[in-house]
């Protein structure tokens, strides 16, 4: 047995992760691309049958949905994007980055210029062959003055995109960013066919394993396997149907009566009852999605870190997890980096913050206050149960002499009128696959979504350094320090990370499920199969 075979075996048995596999085989001198295809081969060995029609019931979606990735705004359309489009890179089911439409990529040492080599012979659903120009047009779809794309802030750091021949795309960044290949895997940044430098964003044509047969916004999408799909070991179903079933009871009924094969967003209150059904299994993944209470650190009394600490200690995270998420989640440690992130600070690096009334009182006293009275704005638009969570927080904090006044805000316009405006409010974050991405989005000084209006010199310095740092160990150390800073000095209370809880018919098979997003990282249609 060669060492290569050994690694393949380990991967098959799940003994090593894909990331480790990639790392170790790289050490053997293999190119990333070869390693990937080998990994795919190994995965295939473990499996799957072809055929069948997967029926997915998704608890989101609206008649106003469009196929334009720039406006992907809910889980339904995002999952559909995952089924129809490829990106340059893909976050694999174990959380690490694998090549997708890009065969390989190469940064300059300062991580400022990234050169992506495209896979050859990839065909769009309309028969067109993938070229560099398509990639440039697809990314440019989100850039520029007139961009209405939700992904505009994501592609903002890109200074320039150039096609270099038919198979090479060169990205020039404003500042170095070691995580750029991760960023380019964002679900908005789907690669679409282009014509005269304009991406065709509305027809839903991609390069993935499934073509759209019919798309009825807010109702259903019918997908058919694309016979010329380039990726091997994927796209097992002959067809798929993605249904919008917003009412959770209807969704649950549909699953138990066999109308659908899988559903997302299981009703947490009754998940234990659903699990008893002999045809159904509950699958949950813990990802990067988390709830926060963001304080404006530029406003009194939140400009005082002791006040912030007092509030952080005055919350019983376990209780919140139990009653709001019914345990389907993980408690947070006042920073946004989840367990599935690469550089998550373990308990030994950063002790878990607990509900500690004495410490809360201590910090309160240190801030020169004997009691505290603050408003907390919440609405269920922030996250399901936000108002209940705020009410629970109020009860916990009361024991530490802190009086929280829960302000129920209207659901409508919550993100425009409350978030980033009110001094303290409930917020939901889908999370980001990389630390840098998460921190730069919501914690870097001056970032548009820095909802705590927080500025920390050391943190911001570390952020830029780490971004361009290619040495793994040094990077880890930097990110752990940043997590520590955010936890101890930041303006955000992070009570918990929520799981993605799905209900699957027992006949649905899958590998380890991607945890970066719901439904296997939005890739359920491509990754799953019927046993």
């Amino acid at each position, binding site marked *: 047995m060669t060492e290569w075979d050994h690694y393949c075996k380990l991967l098959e048995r799940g003994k090593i992760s894909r990331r480790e596999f990639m790392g170790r085989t790289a050490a053997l001198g293999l190119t990333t691309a070869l390693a990937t295809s080998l990994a795919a081969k190994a995965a295939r060995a473990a499996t799957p049958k072809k055929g069948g029609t997967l029926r997915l019931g998704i608890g989101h979606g609206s008649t*106003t949905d469009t196929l334009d990735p720039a406006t992907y705004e809910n889980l339904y359309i995002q999952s559909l994007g995952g089924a129809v489009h490829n990106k340059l890179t893909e976050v694999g089911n174990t959380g690490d980055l694998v090549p997708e439409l890009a065969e390989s990529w190469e940064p300059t040492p300062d991580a400022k210029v990234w050169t992506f080599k495209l896979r050859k012979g990839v065909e769009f659903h309309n028969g067109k062959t993938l070229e560099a120009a398509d990639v440039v047009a697809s990314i440019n779809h989100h850039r520029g003055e007139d961009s209405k794309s939700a992904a505009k802030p994501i592609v903002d750091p890109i200074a320039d995109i150039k096609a270099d021949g038919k198979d090479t795309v060169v990205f020039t960044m404003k500042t170095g960013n070691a995580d750029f290949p991760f960023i380019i895997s964002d679900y908005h940044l789907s690669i679409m066919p282009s014509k005269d430098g304009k991406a065709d964003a509305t027809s839903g044509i991609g390069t993935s394993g499934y073509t759209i047969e019919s798309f009825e916004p*807010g109702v259903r999408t019918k997908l058919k396997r694309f016979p010329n799909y380039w990726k091997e070991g994927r796209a097992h179903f002959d067809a798929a149907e993605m249904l919008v079933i917003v009412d959770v009871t209807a969704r649950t009924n*549909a699953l138990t009566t066999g109308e659908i094969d899988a559903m997302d967003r299981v009703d947490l209150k009754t998940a234990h009852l659903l699990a008893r059904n002999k045809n159904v299994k509950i699958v949950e993944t813990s990802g990067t999605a988390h709830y926060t209470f963001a304080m404006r650190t530029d406003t009194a009394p939140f400009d005082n870190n002791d006040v912030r600490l007092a509030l952080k200690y005055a919350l019983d995270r376990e209780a919140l997890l139990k009653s709001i998420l019914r345990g389907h989640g993980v408690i947070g440690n006042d920073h946004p980096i989840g367990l599935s992130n690469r550089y998550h600070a373990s308990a030994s690096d950063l002790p878990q913050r607990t509900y500690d009334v004495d410490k809360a009182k201590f910090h309160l006293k240190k801030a020169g206050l004997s009691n505290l009275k603050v408003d907390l704005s919440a609405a269920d638009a922030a996250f399901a149960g936000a108002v209940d969570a705020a009410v629970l927080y109020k009860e916990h904090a009361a024991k530490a002499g802190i009086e929280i006044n829960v302000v129920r805000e209207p659901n409508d*316009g919550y993100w425009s*009128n409350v978030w980033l405006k009110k001094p303290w409010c409930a917020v939901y974050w889908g999370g980001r696959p990389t630390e840098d991405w998460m921190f730069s989005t919501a914690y870097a000084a001056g970032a548009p979504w820095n909802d705590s209006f927080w500025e920390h010199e050391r943190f911001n310095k570390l952020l830029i350094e780490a971004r361009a740092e290619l040495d793994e160990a040094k990077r880890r150390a930097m990110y752990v320090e940043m997590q520590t800073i955010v936890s101890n000095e930041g303006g955000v209370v992070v009570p918990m990370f929520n799981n993605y809880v799905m209900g699957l018919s027992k006949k649905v098979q899958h590998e380890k499920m991607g945890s970066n997003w719901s439904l296997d990282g939005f890739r359920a249609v491509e990754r799953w199969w019927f046993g």
Partner: protein
Amino acid sequence: MTEILTMVAQRLALGLLTLFVVSLIIFLGIELLPGDLTEAVLGQSATPETVAAFRRELGLDLPPHTRYFEWLGGILQGDFGKSLANQREISELIGVRFANTLFLAAIAAIISVPLAVTLGVLAALHRNSFFDRSVNVVTLSSISFPEFFVAYILILFLAVNVNIFPSISNVSPDLGFWERVYRVMLPALTLTLVVVAHMMRMTRASIINLLASPYIEMANLKGLSRSRIIVHHALPNALAPIINVIVINLAYLVVGVVIVEVVFVYPGLGQLFVDSVIKRDVPVVQGSCLIFAATYILLNLTADVLSILSNPRLLHPK
């Protein structure tokens, strides 16, 4: 006959005026809603620049009256415009949904109207009998339950416990007619339970109301049988109120079924409307509202015309 036509023409003209006012109210209503489509679609990821660009693209930066009159101009030329959210033709978007809504309403009506009238006639015929009382109690109870409750109960019994009908009615355009009928059975039954009581009670009451009339006494004294008196003498004269209540219920079946659509995941116009309100997709909201209002107006007109046709006094004036 010409009088009926004149009346129809007048009512249609009035109806157009009503539609105009309705469109104005709805437009103003949506203008008053906090936020617009761009903010709703972009949600948490909105930045001032993207919102501004989005608004420019959709023309939402124009003043409200300009947008309204542009929309109105389009309508007058038969152009309902395009959905702001996905640029689909509204006539197309609404067309499919409205067809679905009408289909469900039709199935529900086909079940409920004959059922209600038959029950009403039978109850009137055997009034104060055990049958009458039980029909009364059962129908009264059935309107006393919230719609979603009836829906859930039916799902529990007919889909979960015994899998006779599908629990969701996700019809699609490629389904065959009978498959479609099968799929909408549960929502149709739900709606039937909701509307039957009203129509049945009205049928019964209108007939019984007439039983005190001299011509019914006359029919009795002519030695006619009970059933002939009810069916031949009372029913024709009770038609106007019965038609009226049937039409009101038909209107309800078309415009009032949002909840049933939600529970059964039925792709009708109601869902489209609710989604569009949430997303502030003004042209779609306007379009669907006009459809709803027009349905209401036309059905009312139909009721009046039918009442005239069923009444010789109005049909054959002196």
